[in-house]
């Protein structure tokens, strides 16, 4: 294997891993704070991408209008899910898991009926390809990677250096103690759902512009997200970032050198190994 090919494989994997990481951050945020495994997250990615396609492509409005509008749409749906699905179940992990799967199927089926079967595309915001020696990379992928990095840093800063972020961490660490400190957990939950939805919406924009838009587009990234979150440790931002990059590169190396079929097998093998050796994941804690 030449060094050029190696660089190509690793770079491709890092970029894809960063997009998966962004989606996984939304999953791990909710789990960390309220122990909810949100199966609807993949559908938020898909619905956001369709919203961006509809506003930005079909209606021809600029992307700086379409993406914020998609964030609003995703946040609205996420809050509805929180109020109507998860809160009545008192955030019970198993019940929320099952209801989430049902809601996910329902939203996906409705999407086939509403949006139709033809896949759509969000045009690249920065078209063209960067070539460095023998290594190629679409500019849109690099933009997507950069956006994901910025958002991951922004999330870290939000959680560690702002009052609402600190409130979230307080609820995550000890809900009762946070209550005694005057923090309303319900408000924190709503904020967490909105942030998670915003991450899904931006993830949808990036995925849609790189991979196209259709009602199934959220499924594979969500599955990857769960693997990433499990490996990184449920609720751990740092673990999610590292696991996202790791899975992205592992997929790229396996897919390129051994064939795409093996990528998922390797992912699950890694996941099983980590769950056996360290059940809480790399940076997680016991549930």
């Amino acid at each position, binding site marked *: 294997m030449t060094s050029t*090919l190696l660089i190509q494989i690793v770079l491709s994997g890092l970029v894809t891993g960063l997009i998966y990481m962004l989606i996984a951050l939304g999953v791990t945020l909710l789990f960390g704070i309220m122990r909810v495994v949100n199966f609807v997250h993949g559908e938020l990615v898909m619905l956001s991408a369709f919203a961006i396609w509809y506003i930005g492509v079909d209606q021809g409005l600029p992307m700086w209008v379409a993406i914020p509008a998609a964030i609003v749409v995703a946040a609205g749906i996420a809050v509805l899910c929180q109020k109507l699905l998860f809160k009545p179940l008192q955030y019970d992990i198993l019940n929320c898991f099952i209801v989430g799967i049902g809601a996910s199927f329902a939203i996906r089926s409705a999407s086939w009926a509403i949006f139709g079967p033809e896949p759509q595309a969000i045009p690249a915001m920065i078209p063209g390809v960067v070539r460095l020696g023998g290594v190629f990379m679409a500019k849109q992928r690099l933009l997507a990677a950069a956006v994901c990095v910025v958002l991951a840093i922004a999330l870290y800063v939000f959680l560690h250096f702002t009052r609402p972020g600190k409130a979230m961490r307080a609820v995550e660490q000890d809900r009762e103690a946070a209550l005694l400190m005057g923090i309303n957990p319900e408000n924190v939950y709503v904020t967490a759902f909105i942030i998670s939805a915003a991450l899904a919406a931006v993830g949808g924009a990036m995925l849609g512009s790189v991979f*196209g838009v259709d009602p199934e587009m959220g499924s594979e990234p969500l599955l990857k997200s769960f693997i990433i979150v499990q490996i990184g440790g449920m609720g751990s931002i740092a673990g999610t970032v590292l696991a996202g990059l790791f899975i992205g590169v592992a997929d790229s190396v396996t897919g390129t050198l051994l064939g795409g079929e093996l990528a998922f097998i390797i992912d699950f093998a890694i996941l099983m190994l980590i769950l056996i050796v360290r059940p809480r994941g790399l940076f997680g804690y016991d549930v």
Partner: protein
Amino acid sequence: MTIARRGFLALGFAGMGLRAGWAADKTIILGCSIPLSGPAAPTGITTQRTVEHALELINAKGIEIGPDRYTIVAEFYDNKYIPAEAVTVVEKMMADGVRYLFSSGSGNSVPVVEKTTAAKVLQMSGASGKGHLTAPQFPYSFRVQPTNETAYAVYPWLKTAYPEIKRVAHMNPSDEAGFTESEDRRMIAERNGFTNVGNEYFKRGSTDMYPVATRMVGFTPDLIDMGGTIGRDQGLACKALRELGYQGKILQGYSDAKSFVDIAGPDAAEGTLLFDTLAEPQTPEQKDLYNWWIAKYGPPFPSYAFLVWDWPFILASAIRKAQSVDPVVVAGAMRTTVYHGIFGEERFGMKSVYGLDSSLTRQIPMSIIKGGKPSYLATIDWPAGV
């Protein structure tokens, strides 16, 4: 309203009722197992709309068998392009007494062919699947759309139309359709003097095509034959190949050209060769179908409709020829029916390959993506002796 006028209207309604009752008494149910949801749904929806229109025309005349007049009624079932779903819907159809079946996709058609053969159900498949569907042990199974076999016509044509192409790499989904397409296309390419430099499979519906595209580019082919790749996968694969610097030709079929160009982007899609794809109607019959679609559903016209159009008429012709609705008798008649369809003379052949004449042979239209749109390139005659 006068009494006379009321009486006249009553007679009219009674007449309509009688006619409806008469037609409903003699119907042939055609069960269609097609993807109406999921990633392959565009082909299923096109199939449904096209078959419905074909049956309108067939039923307007009816099929006369002795003193009886038959019409064909289609029932559409969503197989989601998932083999397990396909088996379920076909079992349901057979339990309901369906004796004529259309099935879309080899992954959905191969698992049911033994069941339909045992029940003497006439199975028409728009699918690859080679000897798994068309073989002497499946005498009631017909493939009504040339799939992997198009390579028999396309590769000799490529040799003369694009003499600069020497090295061919093949890229297919890792399923029944993909393995079949790859096997045939490699064999036929080699037989026509091309060098096969690579052969790769990918998981259908993959999100990221970079890994498989990186491998494909590494083979430095002059042509990448996407074979059994369909739907969104085509656009993503083409986009990834171009982003990774591939500058050679791409060959693919079974395309919804608009979706393909939307996903791949016009620059990446430019120059892609589309086999068995008629981008623009050439004959009056083709123009009729095109105009009907545009009038009813509006643009864009899915060229896949051309591929689906003829087989309901071939079935009707075979039933007329057989003068029977028994699928066993109709299968015998179908094998010898010569039909003048939208692609000229069409007949079931390829006995030399499959051991019996059960695979539809006809002209193969070729198109090319130019300026972000598909345009007509050529019509290739079916090769002699195949």
